[in-house]
């Protein structure tokens, strides 16, 4: 009896491992930045390049940093959702325009709507490296003390915005400094 059951057991074990492997997303790499202060940056604004915006200007408020680019196809898919989120005005949304041409970026926002309270330009991708960016779009949630609380890699979905992410923002807004 055991002779016939052994292969079955082995198969089941293998199948369980493979099933877990299938469910894992290799693109989701845990970020070491969560729980850490947001990296310092001071970058020119997309629409007003002579002025700069930095992480220090945003202390005291809950904000999202959304990494986007006009060349990024998934960003296009995500964009309507960001527009919806911006309409609710629950959170400050800052865009990090990553390795993009400013003219293309501006045209893109004109065409698809601008959900960002401000967008800053990271043309050579240096600040992107500081944030550990590897797959645009990425979204960071930063609390009032300037601590990164969450990172989302890839386009946000409706479920994220009305569910986990929305709840998280609400919770963070209620936190006191």
């Amino acid at each position, binding site marked *: 009896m055991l002779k016939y059951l052994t292969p079955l057991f082995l198969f089941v074990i293998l199948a369980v491992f493979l099933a877990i492997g299938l469910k894992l997303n*290799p693109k989701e*790499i*845990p*970020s*070491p*930045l969560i729980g850490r202060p947001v990296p310092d940056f001071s970058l020119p604004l997309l629409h007003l390049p002579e002025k700069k915006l930095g992480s220090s200007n945003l202390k005291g408020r809950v904000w999202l940093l959304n990494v986007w680019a006009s060349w990024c196809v998934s960003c296009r898919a995500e964009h309507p959702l960001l527009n919806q989120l911006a309409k609710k005005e629950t959170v400050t949304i800052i865009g990090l325009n990553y*390795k993009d041409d400013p003219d293309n970026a501006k045209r893109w926002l004109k065409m698809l709507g601008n959900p960002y309270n401000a967008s800053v330009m990271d043309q*050579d*991708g*240096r600040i*992107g*490296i*500081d*944030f*550990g*960016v*590897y*797959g645009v779009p990425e979204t960071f949630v930063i609390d009032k003390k300037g601590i990164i609380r969450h990172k989302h890699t890839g386009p946000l979905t409706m479920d994220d915005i009305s569910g986990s992410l929305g709840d998280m923002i609400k919770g963070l807004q209620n936190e006191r400094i």
Partner: protein
Amino acid sequence: MKFIYLILLFTVHSVCLAAAVEYREFENPEQENSYYELIDELRCLVCQNQTIADSNADLAKDLRRQVHEMLQKGKTRQDIIDYMLSRYGDFVLYRPPLKSKTILLWTGPFIFLILGLILLFIFIRKKKSESPAEMDKQQHQRIRQLLDQDRDS
């Protein structure tokens, strides 16, 4: 016509190769060695099974530039590895550090090797202790008959 295609093929390829070569300046050979060692140990997070030396993804280019700049500023190997770790986590290293989280990764192959050896050992012992099949006289006769038949034909 085939000949022209062939020429075209080679020219196209050489253009691609030329584009992939980066020109870097180093102050001394040690610095150059560290550079090539480092870019061969750091993983490109976009095409995850390539090092940043192999990959031509934009991120890999940026990371190569970063490594080069840091070396030029006199940073050590460890400085650069720490820099990458604090941004991208252990995954950026092809040789992740031994930690409680990575212990299975490092010891897994040896565990499986030992497990395999134990199974092999048990299997061999079992085979050895098995007594040969017993047959009665009739069966022996039958075998003899069959063998003889075979020889005759």
